[in-house]
């Protein structure tokens, strides 16, 4: 008689400050595939994990924003390379989470990697598009340039677990912000694998922090957090009541808010610049000419 092999029932962890800690709360939750079968356990992030992630993101901000745009482009491109290396694992995660066929899941991964490469290219070009040399009536250069906002809370889309995630995170970090990301609640595993890609690329610890768990419980703490400078409400798309209360909480420290759409957008479409420009601020400098 041959013994059947015992399955390894994995319990994934969070990604905070470049490390993979368990949730401070000690809780995890069961993740099912699209057909309802057990896949793995994911850490259920608590408000204290969100707090720790904000501290990590704040600590990483100076160094990340201070890198040259060219260097940030290289690092984003590096993430794309690592995702390419982990192709089978990511395809599997997307198939299980979203119930797609193999070829459809491959296509989603292609689009995700292309999206990263696309945003990587914008790192040293956004300034040229949204910045300006303003004509002024005096012997001065007057230059407006986009600057990163700071620590950005990102509620990742609930349905599009990889392409949506990448489309939400890449535009935030490419301009020099750091991010605290709350993954899709029911489809967290692509985010976990994405975190593993980040950890093995050149992204400094704390630039992207990924919390798996329920956005509806964590988001109020991020929205009210006085040390978070902006929040993207993509992950509560369609939940008008919650989105409104988050906007009210965010107003306390004048957070920039990227408002929740009525429904999750089609992430395969051209994203435009809006996701980047939502999280930059314009700095204008006067400089005397001819001194």
């Amino acid at each position: 008689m041959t013994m059947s092999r015992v399955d390894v029932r994995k319990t994934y962890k969070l990604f905070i400050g470049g490390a993979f800690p368990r949730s401070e709360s000690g809780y995890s939750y069961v993740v099912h595939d699209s057909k309802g079968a057990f896949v793995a356990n994911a850490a259920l992030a608590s408000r204290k994990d969100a707090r720790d992630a904000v501290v990590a993101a704040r600590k990483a901000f100076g160094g990340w924003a201070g890198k040259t745009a060219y260097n940030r482009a290289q690092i984003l491109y590096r993430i794309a390379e690592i995702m390419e290396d982990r192709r089978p694992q990511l395809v599997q995660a997307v198939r299980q989470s979203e119930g797609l066929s193999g070829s459809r899941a491959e296509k989603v991964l292609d689009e995700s990697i292309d999206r990263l490469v696309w945003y990587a290219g914008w790192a040293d070009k956004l300034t040229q598009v949204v910045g300006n040399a303003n004509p002024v009536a005096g012997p001065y250069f007057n230059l407006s340039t986009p600057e990163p906002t700071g620590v950005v809370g990102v509620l990742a889309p609930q349905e599009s677990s990889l392409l949506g995630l990448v489309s939400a995170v890449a535009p935030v970090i490419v301009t020099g912000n750091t991010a605290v990301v709350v993954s899709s609640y029911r489809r967290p595993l692509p985010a976990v694998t994405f975190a593993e890609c980040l950890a093995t690329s050149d992204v400094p610890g704390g630039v992207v922090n990924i919390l798996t768990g329920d956005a509806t419980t964590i988001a109020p703490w991020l929205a009210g957090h006085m040390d978070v400078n902006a929040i993207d409400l993509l992950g509560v798309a369609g939940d008008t009541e919650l989105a409104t209360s988050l906007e009210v909480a965010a107003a306390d420290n004048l957070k920039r808010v990227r408002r929740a759409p009525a429904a999750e957008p089609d992430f395969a479409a051209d994203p435009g610049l809006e996701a980047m420009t939502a999280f930059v601020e314009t700095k204008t400098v006067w400089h005397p000419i001819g001194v």
Partner: protein
Amino acid sequence: MPPSPTTATAEDAAAQFSDVTRSDASLRGFLHGLPGVDQVGADARAAALGTRSIKTTAKAYALDLAIRMVDLTTLEGQDTHGKVRALAAKAMRPDPADATCPATAAVCVYPDMVATAKEVLGESGVHVAAVATAFPSGRAALDIKLADTRDAVEAGADEIDMVIDRGAFLSGRYLQVFEEIVAVREACARADGSSAHLKVIFETGELQTYDNVRRASWLAMMAGGHFIKTSTGKVQPAATLPVTMIMLQAVRDFRETTGQMVGVKPAGGIRTAKDAIKYLVLVNEVAGPDWLDPDWFRFGASTLLNELLMQRTKMTTGRYSGPDYFTLD
């Protein structure tokens, strides 16, 4: 039942140990006769006490108590009068946005900054502590150390933080260390007959063993120190939970023996509100609730205060605060 601390004086205690402190040999005999510290046990006990969960009203009480126990410290070569004035103002009103926030216990500065700090603090009740005796190394002749101390006291210091001569201590010249502490304590006397409180810094990071920490504690208490303090903050490791626990055991045992209460001040490396609360748990469990008072327990810290204020704000407003809302210092 230990005698009430008010009935025993430092002189009584000193008299009780006059036999011990008569000669180097008798002092060494006494200090080496103290029970050894079980290092593994001490680490484990301190770690276990650090796991206590302090929540809601107890946490609010602990945060306010910790703020009242802070010796807000700036001990840098680049200190300016302006910085000391700003720090002193902060010590009196740590959170300008909240009138219910208590003041800190003291500001701790170099002797040349005492007058500046005193000018701002006035009669606010916030003390001025000065580090003296060739802080932080303690490597100077005794008369220079004493002059340093007298200068600080004359400038208005309420408390003097002295460093022991670790070189002498480690080479076993205990009587020299003892006599130096006694001499500095005498130099703390003011013209009007009162005297500044004396805190004795061991620099536990340089004492190598927990046994030495226990010996240094007894040595300083017998010499009449009002406080025993872990570190200067200039040497790593600075204050740790197990070291502070051993010092708390020493002050507890000293009170049982002499009736005299001595304070404890961990300094350096205590940065988060959570750490501070762990220390308070330790104080309560090891020395007892009598020490849960700014007169008997202090934190030497600079960044800790902002962390305590942020936690306090979190408790009153219900949302996490950020460093943008408190002064940089």
